[in-house]
């Protein structure tokens, strides 16, 4: 065959990332690197108290400070509170006592760091100086930070609509069956465990630039966000009331996120409001690290009572769990969804445990709000079941690896409908653990860690004055979120969908633009999407550019989190290449005066079956389609195709982690 445009197949090849040159030379474009003409700077006054009423806020002195353009308090802003997009249980009838932040707090503060006033000034320094001239008359109140204590009698009460600080009471699994299994078991081990609060801490803090264009009555908001499309939807339909088509959201390069940049934050709306207040001067707000700790979401923070039941031979027959999930002083965008759907429903992990019941109480406390962080709910579930397996093994005197092996879902038992309810979401939209083979991963990890020699290694360490220990975890994770029918419509989730999108345009010169609905924060989407599209269309990677993270110019997408881009987003891109190929094939048949059924495709070459010298390349075909001087009957111009992909299931990655830690008994040095 005539090899017109041979492009090496880059799929699976080890190639250098296409986004790296800008980052290694200092030419990245992060939020704080953006400078706009006449830009102003905003600083936010945050509560020094975990729980307090606001008697008054005196702003006149701040307004007179040098460079100050505006001082804003909550009552100035006509916007709604931030949305709550994922109540526990979705629409399944669970009562959720919802309180979300306002753009600036008005009814008192519920955590240290909640914003109460903002200053916009010519420089960031002037804005910070003016914050110090604002006088707030605080009425401090007793605070509670422990989720379990917050539900007990006498605890400080945060919200009138949430008695005992309870956000929701949610449960999953078979209560009667689990009670029977636990109460009649040969062996039951009980333990209270704490999964401590974590701060996501991306290297780049959050920030926004809001710009109101008075000429068009439109807003542009640059945001360090994982989800610009979702933010446009939430900021318009729920918070500001500004029509969705009048707002454009852009995420520039994002310096890490780890879940914390998925959500709708008050500062986004605040920069929009402030820019309009100033008649259209852009307003930049960049979060300090201290603010990042106080006012960007935290993760985890569970107190759990677990009971694991089984037989002396190591067979686990029941797991009963009660968890207090700390959700902070008000709810973040999907806070309640994390310790429910993404936790309780995967609590049995990679084990075949016939009876499970999990109760979760979501709790308000005087702490920063809690939402999705690195794994989000699933690491908390893994900690519960893995700690339980260790405890049970110790109780019956069985090896920790052996008890895991004894209870794994076997390779021939998939698809597996786990009893904590993945397959029993209301409405009947089931998802299953589709596949797995857990034992080889365990064996490989044990061999790598020298598990059989551990006892000797520990003894040897002891002789040197060291303590050595080993941590073992075998796990699965629900990734590739998520089938829309499961996560959305049936009430399991957040009343929205989770498909993804991609558009591919091949221009006259054969150069190709791929626009996608996902949003990278270091994952290398520009490289990986290019690899996939290059492979599918047989064109050089260098001829492809991947564009993302701008609601003007990319198809709607749900963003990047939950390990979803390659499984959901790239499948959309592959579907789009299929449409491109199909149209190109029709054009090739027309150009080569052949039947479409006789056109075969090999990489970039479209040729007549049996006559490989009668060939057109995809680039030649694109030229012909885009110009459209002589299209086949009914073909519209331009090689431009969009595809959407809704995944039929989540993905179910699994693995084994082993950590061996040695500590010096005198110094504590690890």
């Amino acid at each position, binding site marked *: 065959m005539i090899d017109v445009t041979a492009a090496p197949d880059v799929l699976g090849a080890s190639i250098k*990332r296409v986004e*790296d040159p800008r*980052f290694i030379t200092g030419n990245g474009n992060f939020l704080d690197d953006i400078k706009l003409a006449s830009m102003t700077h905003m600083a936010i006054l945050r509560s020094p108290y975990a729980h307090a009423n606001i008697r008054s806020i005196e702003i006149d002195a701040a307004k007179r400070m040098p460079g100050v353009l505006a001082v804003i308090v909550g009552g100035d802003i006509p916007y709604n509170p931030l949305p709550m997009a994922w109540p526990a249980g979705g629409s399944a009838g669970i009562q959720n006592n919802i309180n979300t932040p306002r753009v600036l707090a008005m009814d008192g503060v519920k955590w240290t760091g909640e914003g109460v006033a903002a200053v916009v000034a010519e420089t960031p320094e002037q804005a910070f100086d003016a914050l110090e001239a604002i006088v707030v008359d605080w009425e401090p109140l007793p605070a509670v930070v422990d989720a379990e204590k917050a539900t007990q009698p006498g605890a400080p009460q945060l919200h009138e609509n949430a008695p005992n600080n309870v956000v929701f009471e949610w449960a999953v699994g078979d209560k009667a069956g689990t009670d029977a299994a636990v109460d009649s078991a040969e062996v039951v081990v009980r333990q209270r465990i704490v999964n401590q609060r974590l701060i996501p801490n991306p*290297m*780049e803090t959050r920030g926004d630039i809001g710009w109101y264009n008075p000429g068009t009555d439109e807003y542009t908001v640059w945001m360090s966000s994982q989800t610009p499309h979702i933010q446009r939807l939430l900021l318009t339909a729920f918070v500001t009331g500004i029509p969705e088509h009048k707002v454009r959201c852009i995420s520039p390069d994002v310096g890490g996120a780890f879940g914390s940049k998925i959500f709708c934050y008050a500062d986004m709306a605040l920069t929009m409001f402030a820019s309009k207040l100033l008649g259209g001067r852009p307003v930049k707000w960049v979060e300090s*690290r201290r603010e990042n700790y106080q006012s960007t979401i935290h993760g985890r923070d569970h107190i759990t009572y677990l009971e694991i039941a089984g037989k002396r031979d190591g067979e686990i027959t029941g797991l009963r769990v009660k968890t207090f999930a700390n959700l902070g002083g008000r709810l973040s965008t999907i806070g309640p969804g994390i310790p429910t759907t993404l936790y309780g429903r995967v609590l049995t992990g990679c084990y075949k445990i016939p009876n499970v019941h999990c109760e979760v109480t979501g709790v308000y406390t005087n702490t920063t709000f809690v939402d999705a962080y690195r794994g989000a709910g699933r690491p908390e579930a893994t900690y519960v079941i893995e700690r339980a397996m260790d405890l049970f093994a110790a109780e019956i005197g069985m090896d920790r690896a052996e008890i895991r092996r004894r209870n794994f879902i076997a390779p021939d038992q998939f698809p597996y409908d786990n009893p904590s309810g993945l397959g029993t979401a209301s409405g009947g939209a089931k998802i299953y653990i589709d596949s797995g083979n857990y034992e080889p991963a365990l064996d490989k990890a044990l061999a790598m860690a020298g598990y059989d020699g551990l006892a000797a290694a520990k003894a040897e360490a002891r002789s040197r004055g060291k303590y050595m220990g080993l941590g073992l975890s075998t796990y699965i994770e629900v990734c590739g979120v998520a089938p829309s029918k499961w996560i959305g419509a049936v009430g399991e989730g957040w009343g929205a969908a989770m498909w993804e999108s991609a558009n591919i345009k091949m221009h006259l010169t054969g150069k190709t633009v791929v626009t996608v609905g996902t949003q990278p924060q*270091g*994952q290398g989407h520009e490289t990986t999407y290019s690899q996939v599209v290059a492979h599918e269309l047989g064109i050089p990677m260098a001829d492809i550019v991947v564009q993302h993270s701008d609601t003007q110019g990319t198809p709607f997408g749900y963003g990047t989190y939950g390990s979803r881009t390659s499984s959901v987003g790239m499948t959309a891109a592959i579907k789009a290449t299929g449409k491109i190929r199909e149209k190109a094939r029709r054009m090739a048949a027309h150009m080569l005066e052949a039947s479409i059924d006789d056109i075969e495709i090999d990489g970039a070459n479209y040729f007549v079956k049996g006559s490989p010298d009668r060939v057109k390349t995809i680039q030649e075909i694109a030229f012909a389609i885009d110009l459209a001087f002589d299209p086949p009957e009914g073909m519209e111009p331009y090689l431009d195709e969009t595809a959407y992909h809704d995944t039929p299931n989540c993905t179910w990655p699994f693995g084994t982690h082993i950590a061996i830690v040695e500590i010096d008994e005198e110094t504590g040095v690890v």
Partner: protein
Amino acid sequence: MSEHIAFVVNGTPRELDVEPRRLLVQALREDLDLTGTHVGCDTSQCGACTVHLDGRAIKSCTMLAVQADGAEIRTIEGLATSDALHPMQTAFWEKHGLQCGFCTPGMIMTAIDLLERNPDPTDDEIRHAIEGNFCRCTGYQNIVAAIRHAAETMRSGAAVTA
């Protein structure tokens, strides 16, 4: 009130009038538009703001611009020539030593400082040298590999081009 300062940045003499409280990193980013140097933590913990001052790596978020008066400063923007990357930049690219890229400029500046003092560091010495630079994408394995690779390249004196 402002102070007049003069320094050499990436080989070019520059003069600025700055507030006495202006940090060096702000002078670089805001006054000189050298935004490749990042602010991560505001408190000299994370190292994203690392630049070279008179040949040594320093954290520019905890130095006043006026303290840099008369100094010679090199930033991430001053490493590559028009036709060649610095071997450390190439090494980070080759060895996938970055993910989100936010820590990368500071990490590269610290790594170059290490190799200028110790051209053949052990992995332990590399890890010790970068302990003041955080990567929250947790890419340390590849960062260490990149620095080791750059050390080999720079010792061999091979010309490295983009």
